[in-house]
Structures are given as structure tokens and as C-alpha cells.
């Protein structure tokens, strides 16, 4: 169950184009599983930026000098995230977590490929640790537009059996996209499960590749959210349920991790006409 916590910044350090913030989190650190995320309030009690920003939890330390802490990875690309990376040690932050549905882990020691786009890779390292602890093989594929936008390459090399890097501009690793490299990784290591986190077009491509090969995939989506706790209905996307019916589901509580074959990737941003409760007359969206 999520909780609201008056947190303090323990540290903020740069990692390429990103910032890694370590925050006190009390018991949130004990209940966090890989794929969970945190909702962070921006700008203090009188802030004009009302909406919490969502960050997948990069790591946890259950017991330390500061009690439990959690790490998040922040890219400063708007006023809220710019404020956040400007926080210093001991600054207060209002956080809620752990939020969402985490990755599900295989019962058996299977072969797993973990795919991260940009700083979308943030939750994959904690996931890799859990998978390794279950005896799973872990191969990682990290991609970004350019080297500066990769996150966690060194960490990946410590944890994974193999690490494949791709950049659009060829500044590091193979030139191209993660999906250009993923096929070979899956073939070489007989991948049973693909885990992915990153921009939506990447998730769509990864999920399709996995489905084509009959491989199970789990994708953590990035949808814009207002509340993060399931009340506002802004972060919805079309997902096929166990009953075969498409519904607009909340990525904050029913996700952010979805089965790749259940999300209607090409329809994200629309209401497919066969969605439960879709408008009958106008027949869909805009």
C-alpha cells in the first residue's frame, strides 16, 4: 500500500545528462519492488506547479544512516524537473510511493532480456538484481539518441551477462536503435522473457518483436499523469483485458507495467472504436 512521506534529499549527483537523487523514504524502501514508481510533489507547499512528477524507482537501501532511502533518476526538461534537480542535501520533499504494479518475476530460472531507452533504464537494475537472485540469466540492451543520454552503462556491465549498447548517432556502441540489436540478443541467448522501459515507440517496437517470436514481454509505460494514485483518469491507454475486451486503463494503478501483447500500441492516444464505452456516433477520437 502506498504511503505519503515527508522526505529529505540525502544526495543529488549528476549521471551524464541526468541527476540521481537519493531520498529518505522510511518504510517505502521496504515495500518497493522493481517497476514501482514514486510521486514527487514539486515546489513546496505554496507551489503553483500542482501535479506530482512520477519517477520509476531506480534503487532502494532498506537500512542505512538515513533509515530507508530510495533513488530516482531525473531528467531536467521542464520547470518541475528543473526545480527538483536544484534540490540540495536536507531539502524537504513530499513523496508518495511505492506506486503502481511492479514487474512480475518468473518462477523459473529463465533467460531474460532487459531493454532500456534513455533513462527509462532506471528501474531495470533493481529488476536485474531480483532476476539474478532467482537464477535467471540477464542480458541488457541500453539505447539512447546519443552517449550522454544513456543511463547506467557501468551498472549494467556489473549485473548482466552481456550488455549491448546502441546510440542513434553512433557515439557509443552500435549505431541504431535497441530493436536493431535486440533480435540478435534474443537469438544468441534463447530469451524467454523481455522486460522493457522507455519511450512509447520503443516499447511498441520491443513488444512487437517479442510477440513475433512468441516471447513474453513486460513493458513499463511512460504516460503523463496528474495524481499517480488512480483518481484522475488522465494516464489511460487502450489495453486488452483477460476477457478480450479493450478498456482505457490507468497506467498509474493498473500499470505502469503491462504485458506487451495486451497494450494496443498503435492506438495509444486514441479511443479505438471497439473500446468498452467508446463513443458510438463520432466513432473514436478527435
Amino acid at each position: 500500500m502506498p504511503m505519503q512521506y515527508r522526505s529529505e534529499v540525502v544526495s543529488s549527483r549528476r549521471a551524464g545528462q541526468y541527476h540521481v537523487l537519493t531520498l529518505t523514504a522510511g518504510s517505502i524502501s521496504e515495500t518497493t519492488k522493481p517497476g514501482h514508481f514514486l510521486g514527487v510533489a514539486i515546489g513546496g507547499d505554496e507551489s503553483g506547479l500542482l501535479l506530482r512528477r512520477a519517477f520509476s524507482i531506480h534503487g532502494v537501501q532498506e537500512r542505512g544512516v538515513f533509515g530507508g532511502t530510495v533513488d530516482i533518476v531525473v531528467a531536467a526538461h521542464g520547470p518541475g524537473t528543473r526545480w527538483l534537480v536544484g534540490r540540495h542535501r536536507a531539502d524537504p520533499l513530499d513523496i508518495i510511493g511505492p506506486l503502481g504494479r511492479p514487474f512480475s518475476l518468473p518462477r523459473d530460472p529463465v533467460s531474460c532480456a532487459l531493454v532500456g531507452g534513455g533513462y527509462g533504464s532506471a528501474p531495470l537494475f533493481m529488476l536485474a538484481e531480483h532476476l539474478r537472485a532467482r537464477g535467471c540469466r540477464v542480458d541488457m540492451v541500453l539505447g539512447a539518441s546519443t552517449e550522454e543520454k544513456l543511463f547506467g552503462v557501468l551498472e549494467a556491465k556489473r549485473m548482466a551477462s552481456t550488455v549491448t549498447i546502441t546510440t542513434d548517432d553512433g557515439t557509443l556502441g552500435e549505431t541504431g536503435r535497441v530493436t536493431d540489436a535486440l533480435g540478435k540478443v534474443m537469438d544468441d541467448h534463447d530469451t524467454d522473457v523481455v522486460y522493457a522501459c522507455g519511450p512509447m515507440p520503443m516499447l511498441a517496437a520491443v513488444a512487437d518483436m517479442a510477440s513475433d517470436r512468441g516471447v513474453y514481454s513486460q513493458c513499463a509505460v511512460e504516460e503523463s499523469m496528474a495524481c499517480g494514485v488512480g483518481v484522475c483518469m488522465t494516464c489511460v491507454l487502450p489495453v486488452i483485458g483477460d476477457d478480450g475486451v479493450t478498456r482505457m486503463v490507468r497506467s498509474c494503478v493498473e500499470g505502469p507495467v503491462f504485458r506487451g501483447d495486451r497494450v494496443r500500441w498503435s492506438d495509444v492516444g486514441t479511443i479505438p472504436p471497439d473500446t468498452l464505452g467508446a463513443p458510438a456516433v463520432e466513432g473514436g477520437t478527435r
Partner: protein
Amino acid sequence: MTRAVVRPAEALRPQTHDEVDMSTSLAGLDLPSPILTASGCAAAGKELDQFFDITEIGAVVTKSIMPEPRSGRATPRMAETPSGMLNSIGLQGPGIASFIERDLAWLRQRGARAVVSIAGDTVDDYARLAKTLRMQEGISAIEVNISCPNVEDRGKVFACDAGSSSAVIQAVRRNTDSRVPILAKLSPDVTDITTIALACVRAGADGLSVINTLLGMVIDTDRLRPALAGVTGGLSGPAIRPVAVRCVWQIRQALPDVPILGMGGVRTGLDALQFLLAGANAVSVGTMVFNDPSAPLRVHRELQTALAERGFTRLVDAISYAHGYLDRDQQTLDPIDEDVDAVADEQ
């Protein structure tokens, strides 16, 4: 920003403790707390119950429910705005049958007071919803969301027309148990909100929820198009608070006895106090829940402290208190000075 603390010392003895009686009454409904959630900002209470005990607040106002399941609009559905947000959800919901079976049942079992918000495309939709709800126990009140396009009137919003508003309220009143109060939720996007307020009261509304969101729009300057898939959306949050306080004030002046549930950008106990002083009998906390999921209970506690600091022993004494400001100034003046206009100019 500075706030002058004005103690109503002439009328009330100062309070030294915070044991203020917070109970209030809204359209015949007795509430232990004046703070409610707002429709669309609390789902049906279950999610927020993780962050505070929802039975401690006045009531949970549920997200507007329609007769059938509804997918809502395409995304993006939301844009952040200065001290607010714009939303265009399109009333996504499971439909009344599923709502009764799951959400209402959960609220009943949890022991929370439930104000059920209903919305429709036609007058008949509202009538059907009221009929369906009539058979249900555990409904404290029905809030009628009339800020919906009337498909039988070229999509003109019911709340923007006194006749349409009146027709909906009559239909709901006729099909609702007389012991269950109905609240008409008014839109501020009208020329004179008191006209619509009066029409709703004459049609049988027991109280008024004031206000719904303001119609707004944001353009995405990177994509060079409207930020929301629905193009326009409802503006909410502290940005609209002065508009909401003004609407409550005007309705209280026009209709001195009508019960009012005030809302619009309530963030703190002092914000809630503004609404009470303007004439609200109870106050909803809406959009701020997205910022602080425990806001309703926090606002309740802050309001209790604020009332105590101002010498109120009972919350109900603060309702409409600001309307008496001219009379009170008059009482404290030198008896020789009877120039009311001069006093008013000093305000």
C-alpha cells in the same frame, strides 16, 4: 501576500483551544465535518482511503456516473497550468450498474457517507439514473452534474441554460426519494450564475454545488496544436478560487437560505474558511488532492485551527459571516458617525 487576521471579537468571545464544533448541515444532511471530496477528484474514495480515513471527512463525492460504461476522450487529457490544471477526461466510467455493484457497495461497507454524482446526455438519462439510485441504500445525497452537453439541444451545456438546468433537476427530483437531498452543480461559465441557481432551486434542488470547472484551453507551442485531444477542457485548482468565492458570495446574497457546497481551488484551511465566510455550508477539496492525497483531512484540521484562532466555537457561526461586515463596522463606529458609504469606501 499578506493576510490580516481579523478577529470577530465584537461578536464572539476569543477561543483559546481548538475544540471547535466542526459539524455542519447541508440541505438537511448532518455532517460531522464540513470537508468533502469533489466529483472527479476522488474516484469513489477507495484510492484516497489509503492516505487518510475517508469516514472522518464530511462525505465522498463520487466521480460523475452515467447510465452506460464510457471510455472517455483520447489522450492527452490533461495539461498543467499556473496554479491549476486543465482536464478533458470525458466522463470515463463503468456505468451505473457497475458503480452500484462495486463502488457504492464498497463505500457502504466502509461506512463512508456517499454523495453520488450523476451525469447524462439527455434529461431522460438523468431521470433513469435517479430511478436506479432510488433503490439503493447508503446514499447521503445526489449531486447532479449539469455541465454536460445536452445532445437534444445541439450539445449546449445544460448548466448554461436555465430551462435545461431546470428540466434536469425536475427529472431527478421526481425520481428521487424526498429524504435524499439533491444538489445541482453549477457552471461558472454563465452570464449570471444566480439566475441558474434560482432556476435549479425552483425546480427542486435542495442545495447547490458551486462551482464546476471553467472552460479553458492550452496550446502546445512545440506541437503547434491544442494541448488536449479534446481541444478545450475544464480549468480547476487554486487559479480559479477567486471566481468560485465570488460565485458563492453572489448566490448567498441572492438566495440567503439555499444550502451551498462551495468548491474551487481549496488548498488550505484558510481557503476553506473563505468559502464558509462567503456563504458555503460545506466545502469540497478537489484538484489539490492530486497534489496532496491527504488534503481533505489536512484542510479539515487547518480549518478547525483557523476557526479557533478567530474565536469561533462552532463552524456554523462562520457560515456567511463575511456578509455582515458592513453592519459590524457600523456597530463599532462612533454613534455620531452614520456615514455608511464612507465606511464602505474604506474597505
